[in-house]
């Protein structure tokens, strides 16, 4: 029922809506406009034409790049679907020992930097002196190259290690929240275990699986670091590496880069739109990465079977987290990269902390991430509240625009902001401001998701009862809404911080010597082939990310929980928001589960 909506504090709400124009609308509009100009310059004037798209279509390399991106996306989607669903089924239904630990660890690959993982796999699996090839050669006593990560399958594999958690989280949550009696009813109707799985359980969770697969596909379309690092030596290009090279190589081709960016953006926006339709209005509130009880009758697997099946999730985690991190740690402790451990030293870390350039990059990352996170939290809080309260004409459109950057690859945002920064009358090119702006533009939707997910859980009656108690609208916002969504706001902010601290894709085109970030520092060291230093820096960065994850978990706890004093008489379920939810808390909040990204 409609409530009267008087006296919304208009000014902040209007500002929050209008701020979308310079941050989101204008850069993307410039990008589209720039893609139609008949000049390759970002500052010169040009005639509007659509020839650029014809040129791309006529260029075999660009066609191949787009095709390669799509192939990677499909391979990743299929692969992460199989592995993600398998692990979800094992954790929820087979219930092996240690499944809670597995469940908690499954989000870790999600928070690691895909860029750093790509570097780690380059160290592990390059065909010349990769660690794995070296270990195997030592084992068999002669030089062999059984493994090359510098290949299509190598790139797809590394992307996949990052996308499996999407499919896993959505599927496990769906499996866990499926009413066990549905499967019990199938059993009582005479369906065996396999039949139940095929005819009842899987169809029930199919939409969630599909949504997860779409994630993986979009994610693969947006991946830049993996093909750039693993594909460079075999000249494997994707549309995003083409964009990068068009801007980085002389002569600079802004027009071509923009047109390519528009093409890839069109693809990803459609994919995300379809994915949103798949998820529909179904609530994934209970999505905390925590899988529920699961069907009891399906857990009749023998101990040996359960232990054997445990190998699958464990194997995945070893490949996705343990092995690459171990490789980085190992190499960071050696004077030069080698599969044989000859000498352990801390000299790389000493060097890292003694070089002013590294420290400045670290400082730049910290400042821009923190400032952008705070600005984004404030902005998105006001925007989310304005969207909740007001049903003004076009508020749906505003909501879509605010979430649009979720569908836009970081490199594309980078190209779009390049236009703004080059055309800006005020000097922002090469400053920290453009970096912070890029973070805000790219990652604010995650904060917004997190906040709106929490706000929709706040029953309108909670606001109304405060009004009836004599509180005006401002008081209601301060006394009721803010405290209730604070955990989600904070964990949204932490997610923002994580994403921006590890980000490479968004700033790779915007960052230069004057506004270097830590990821860019690793990037340039890698280009100079200083592998032990790269490894040490990557370990430092990953440690910071890990600390942030822990901080996020801690900040995201539900407030004032004192369940130790719970009364004997059973509490009623009139607070579904707090009971099932709790999950604004967990870092794997709906915001993430819906639209992960790096």
């Amino acid at each position, binding site marked *: 029922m409609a409530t009267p909506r008087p006296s919304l504090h208009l000014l902040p709400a209007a500002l929050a809506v209008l701020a979308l124009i310079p941050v989101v609308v204008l850069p993307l509009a410039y990008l589209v406009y720039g893609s139609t100009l008949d000049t390759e310059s970002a500052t010169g004037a040009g005639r509007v034409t659509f020839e650029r798209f014809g040129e791309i279509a006529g260029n075999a390399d660009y066609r191949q790049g787009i095709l390669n991106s799509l192939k990677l996306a499909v391979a990743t989607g299929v692969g992460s679907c199989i592995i993600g669903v398998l692990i979800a089924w094992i954790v929820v239904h087979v219930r092996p020992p240690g499944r809670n630990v597995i469940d908690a660890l499954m989000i870790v690959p999600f928070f690691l930097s895909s860029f750093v993982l790509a570097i780690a796999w380059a160290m592990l699996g390059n065909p010349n002196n990769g660690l794995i090839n070296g270990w195997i050669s030592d084992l068999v006593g002669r030089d062999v190259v059984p493994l090359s990560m510098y290949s299509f399958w190598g790139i797809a594999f590394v992307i996949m290690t990052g996308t499996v958690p999407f499919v896993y989280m959505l599927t496990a949550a769906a499996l866990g929240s499926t009413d066990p009696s549905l499967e019990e009813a199938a059993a009582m109707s005479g369906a065996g275990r396999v039949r139940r799985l095929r005819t009842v359980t899987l169809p029930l969770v199919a939409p969630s699986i599909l949504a997860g697969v779409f994630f993986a596909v979009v994610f693969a379309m947006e991946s830049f670091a993996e093909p750039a690092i693993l594909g460079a030596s075999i000249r494997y290009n994707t549309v995003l590496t083409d964009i990068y090279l068009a801007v980085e190589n002389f002569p600079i081709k802004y027009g071509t880069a923009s047109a390519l960016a528009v093409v890839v953006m069109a693809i990803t926006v459609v994919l995300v739109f379809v994915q949103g339709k798949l998820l529909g209005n179904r609530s994934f509130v209970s999505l905390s990465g925590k899988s529920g009880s699961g069907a009891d009758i399906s857990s009749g697997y023998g101990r040996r079977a359960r232990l054997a099946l445990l190998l699958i999730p464990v194997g995945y985690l070893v490949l996705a987290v343990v092995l690459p991190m171990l490789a980085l740690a190992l190499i960071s402790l050696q004077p030069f990269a080698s599969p044989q451990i000859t000498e352990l030293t801390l000299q790389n870390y000493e060097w890292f902390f003694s070089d002013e350039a590294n420290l400045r990059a670290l400082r730049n990352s910290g400042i821009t991430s923190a400032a952008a996170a705070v600005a984004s939290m404030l902005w998105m809080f006001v925007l989310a509240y304005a969207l909740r309260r007001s049903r003004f004409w076009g508020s749906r459109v505003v909501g879509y625009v605010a979430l649009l950057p979720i569908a836009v690859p970081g490199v594309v945002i980078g190209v779009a902001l390049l236009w703004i920064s080059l055309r800006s009358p005020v000097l922002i090119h090469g400053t920290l401001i453009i970096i912070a702006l890029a973070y805000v533009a790219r990652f604010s939707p995650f904060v917004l998701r997190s906040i709106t997910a929490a706000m929709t859980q706040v029953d309108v009656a909670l606001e109304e*009862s405060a*009004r009836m108690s004599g509180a005006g609208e401002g008081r209601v916002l301060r006394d009721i809404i803010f405290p209730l969504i604070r955990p989600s706001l904070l964990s949204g902010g932490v997610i923002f911080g994580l994403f921006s601290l590890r980000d490479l894709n968004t700033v790779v085109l915007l960052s230069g010597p004057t506004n270097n970030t830590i990821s860019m520092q690793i990037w340039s060291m890698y280009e100079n082939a200083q592998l032990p230093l790269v490894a040490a820096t990557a370990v430092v960065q990953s440690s910071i990310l890990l600390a942030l994850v822990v901080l996020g978990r801690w900040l995201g706890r539900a407030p004032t929980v004192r369940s130790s004093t719970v009364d004997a008489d059973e509490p009623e379920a009139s607070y579904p928001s707090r009971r099932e939810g709790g999950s604004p808390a967990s870092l794997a909040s709906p915001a993430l589960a819906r639209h992960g990204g790096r």
Partner: protein
Amino acid sequence: MSTGSRTTAPHRDGSAGPAPVRQGQPDGEPALDPDYVRIESLFKQFSRTGQATRVLNDVSLTIGEGELLTLLGPSGCGKTTTLRCVAGLERPDSGAIWVRGAPVVDADAGSFVPPEARRIGMAFQSYALWPHMSVLDNVGYPLRMRRVRREGIRRRADEILDRVGLGGKLRRFPRELSGGEQQRVALARAVVANPDVLLLDEPLSNLDARLRQQTLIWLVALLRDLKITTIYVTHDQSEALAISDQIAVMHGGVILQRGTPSEVYDHPLTRFVAEFIGAANLLPGQVTAHRDGGCEVLPAAGGQPYLALPPADAHPASGDEVALVVRPEKVVVQPGHDRPGCIDAVVNVRVYSGSGWQYVMLIGDQELRVDTAVDQVFERGNPVSLSFDGAPLPLVSHREPHE
């Protein structure tokens, strides 16, 4: 809080402060205001996806001071919308509401007092307790909004929580309470600041049946004690009969009948009211004569004519088709067929209710609900003869006017 001394619109400045719990009206006090709350021709429609539904269609009501009026009706009848208009959580399309002589909303004049300035307490169906606040903070919140000092809040909250039997649970959080306890906290919060009017929106509907019965009795005692003018919304007729001074039966955005519980039960004005309140049987019949201010009605199924009372505004003529309202407990059952003056029927269903039997009898193909004492046992399929006690019986029109 003395009545009549304040006729201006309520203020939010807290000047009224936390008056002590309202005492019973002392003798010799001027007569209670019969128009304490006045609702005048409310209209409201919601439009969803282009389709407009009229939820309030000229609703007018007055509620006397200290009275408990129940808005009773099935879901979608407009009772909750009416309540929310009084609260200020909905705005009527047209019409006006006065509380203590001051307009709180007048849609035609464009005036609207926001809910927080109305001095109206409300308990929500979902309780709407703030999960991040303790019981004390929840109950103390209305006082805080009225700028009561901390000690004052503590004292008054203690007092009211003791009154609802939650004295020891000040520091608990809502989730740590049982449903019944949450419900009492919601009620305490609604009355803690001595509102002019108390609104209760289906307060018992989230409790299980056994708890609901206990809470109902407890609530009657509490409300009698507080003597706050109360509007109570429910769809449960037994709740309404038990608790109300006055009942207004609503259907389709219209008030069908308003009166005391016994008036509404014993003299339903329409078929809808008769069927909605206490499962009444509607027995078709024909007016045969007029006597004693009522009329004689002969059931279509036969038997004898019964004295019946038509609604005040209805004047059925001889020969008119009407319906007799026969409550299940007013049916007298005797074994066998062909008794003079009785209607032949057959036992169709028998259900044991503990205190007696509930039957469904068949007169031809018409079903008739009958409640009997525990010693009146009739087997399924057996013939019985029926007659009706308690003449004059209520009489309603054969068809609903808008049917």
